[in-house]
C-alpha cells in the first residue's frame, strides 16, 4: 500500500511539474523577450505584471472551436498533439533533480538511451500533424521537421555518448554521481553541441525553419486550433524544460554546486535549468532564423565533427587518467 501511495505521489508531482514548469518558461519568455525588445510584455492579466497571461491564453484556447479540415486524415490529425506532448512527460519522469534516490520520478538504468529515444518519438507527432493536415504548408513543415530531426539526432547522441564514456555509465544518476567540477571544461564542446542540437530538435529559433511563419505559415501546426494547438505549444515549452534539464544533468553537474550540496541539490538543478531556459529565450531574441540548407550544413559540417572531436578528447583523457 505504501509503495502504491509512493508511486502515485511521484507521478502526481511529476505531472504537476510538467504542467507548471512549461508555463513558467512561457511566461518568462513573454517578459524577457519583451524587455529585450524594449517592450513591457503582458501587463494586465492577473493584475501584477500579467502573471496570469498564460492561464488566460489557456482559457481562450479551451473556448475555441476544435476544427478538423475537411480533407484531413481525421484520426491521425487528432492524435498528433498527444503524441507530440506525451514523450516529454515520460522524459521528465526520469530526470534526477536531487542526489537522493527519492529525487527522481523513476530511476532507469539506461537513462540516456531512454531519454533520447523517447524524445525522438515526440517528433513523430509533428510529422503526423504535417501529413494529416492536407495542407501543403503543413507537409513542407513536416518534411523540414523530419530532415532536421535526422540531422540533429546524431550530434546529440554523440555528445551524450561522450559524457557516458567519461562517467562509465549510461544512467543519469550514475553520471551525476561520477561528476567532478573539471568535467565542465573537459566536456564543454559536447555541452555546446548537445544544447545546440537540442534546440534544433525542439525547432526553437534560430532553428525554427520547420515552423517558419514567414515562409510556411506555421509549418505542421498551420491547421490546428484550440486545445490541440495549445498542446503543441505546451509540448514546445515542455521540450525547453527537458532539454535544459538534460543539459544540466549531463554537462553542468545537476545537483552539484559550490555549496549546499546536501539537501539543497534540487535547488541547484532547478537554478541551472532556469539559467539555460533563459539562454534559450535569449538566443531566440538575438538571432535570425537559419535557412534550411544552413541548418543542414551546421549539423553535418560543424556539430558532428565537433561531437566526434569531443568523443576523441574524452577517450584520450579517460585513458590518461587511468
Amino acid at each position, binding site marked *: 500500500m505504501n509503495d502504491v501511495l509512493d508511486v502515485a505521489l511521484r507521478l502526481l508531482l511529476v505531472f504537476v511539474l510538467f504542467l507548471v514548469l512549461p508555463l513558467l518558461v512561457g511566461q518568462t519568455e513573454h517578459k524577457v523577450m519583451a524587455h529585450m525588445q524594449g*517592450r513591457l510584455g503582458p501587463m494586465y492579466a492577473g493584475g501584477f505584471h500579467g502573471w496570469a497571461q498564460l492561464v488566460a491564453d489557456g482559457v481562450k484556447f479551451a473556448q475555441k472551436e476544435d476544427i478538423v479540415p475537411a480533407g484531413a486524415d481525421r484520426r491521425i490529425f487528432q492524435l498528433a498533439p498527444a503524441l507530440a506532448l506525451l514523450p516529454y512527460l515520460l522524459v521528465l519522469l526520469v530526470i534526477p533533480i536531487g542526489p537522493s534516490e527519492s529525487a527522481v520520478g523513476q530511476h532507469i538504468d539506461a537513462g540516456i538511451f531512454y531519454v533520447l529515444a523517447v524524445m525522438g518519438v515526440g517528433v513523430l507527432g509533428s510529422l503526423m500533424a504535417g501529413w494529416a493536415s492536407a495542407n501543403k504548408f503543413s507537409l513542407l513543415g513536416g518534411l523540414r521537421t523530419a530532415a532536421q530531426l535526422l540531422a540533429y539526432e546524431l550530434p546529440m547522441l554523440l555528445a551524450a555518448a561522450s559524457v557516458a564514456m567519461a562517467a562509465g555509465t549510461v544512467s543519469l544518476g550514475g553520471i551525476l554521481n561520477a561528476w567532478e567540477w573539471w568535467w565542465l571544461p573537459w566536456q564543454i564542446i559536447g555541452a555546446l553541441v548537445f544544447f545546440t542540437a537540442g534546440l534544433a530538435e525542439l525547432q526553437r529559433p534560430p532553428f525554427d525553419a520547420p515552423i517558419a511563419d514567414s515562409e510556411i505559415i506555421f509549418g505542421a501546426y498551420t491547421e490546428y486550433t484550440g486545445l490541440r494547438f495549445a498542446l503543441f505549444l505546451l509540448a514546445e515549452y515542455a521540450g525547453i524544460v527537458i532539454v535544459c534539464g538534460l543539459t544540466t544533468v549531463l554537462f553542468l553537474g545537476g545537483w552539484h554546486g559550490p555549496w549546499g550540496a546536501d539537501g539543497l541539490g534540487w535547488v541547484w538543478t532547478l537554478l541551472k535549468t532556469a539559467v539555460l531556459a533563459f539562454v534559450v529565450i535569449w538566443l531566440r531574441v538575438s538571432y535570425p532564423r537559419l535557412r534550411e540548407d544552413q541548418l543542414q550544413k551546421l549539423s553535418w559540417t560543424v556539430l558532428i565533427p565537433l561531437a566526434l572531436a569531443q568523443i576523441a578528447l574524452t577517450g584520450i583523457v579517460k585513458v590518461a587518467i587511468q
Partner: protein
Amino acid sequence: MAPIPGSGLAKGLAVTLRTMTKKTVTAQYPETQPELPPRTRGVIGLFEENCTVCMLCARECPDWCIYIDSHKETMPPAAPGGRERSRNVLDRFAIDFSLCMYCGICIEVCPFDALFWSPEFEYAETDIHELTHERDKLREWMWTVPEPPALDPGAEEPKEIAAARKTADKLEAQQAAEAEAARGQQTAREQEGPA
C-alpha cells in the same frame, strides 16, 4: 585584424542583453497620460468671442467639415441719429471630426484668431455621428490650448506688442512735448512778467 570567430554572435547577444537592462519604451497609455509636445495637433478649439462668422474657415476646409449657422442682428446706432449697424451673430459652429483630416487650414486662414490647435485627443465616440462636435464642446477645448510658446532670445517683438509700444512711445513723446511746451510758455511768461 581578423575578427575572432563568433564575435558577431556574441555582439548580437550583448545587444539584446543591454536592451533588457534599459528602460522600456512602452507607453502605458490609459494608466499614464502621454507627455505630448506643447504644439501637439490633437483637436481644434474655437475661441467664440473672436469669431465674426466670416466663413473663411468653412470655405477653405478641403473636407467641408465645418458647419456654421448665423443670423444678422441690428445694432442701435452708435451716435444718436446715426445709421443702424447690422452684425453677424454665431448660431452654430460645428466640426465633423469624422471628416476632418487635421490639415489645419481653417486655423491658418482664420483672420481673427478664433481657431486654435489643442493637444486634447481623447474624444473618441462609439457612433460616428457623435463625432460632429458643437460649439460648446469646441469652446471647452479652448481651455486646453497652451500658452503661445516663448520667443527665442533676441527675436523680433511680436507685431501687436511692437505696434502697441509704438503707440505708447508716440503718446509719451507727445505728452513730453506738450509738457515741454507748457513749461516753455510758463518760463517765457515769467521772463516777460518782470520786464
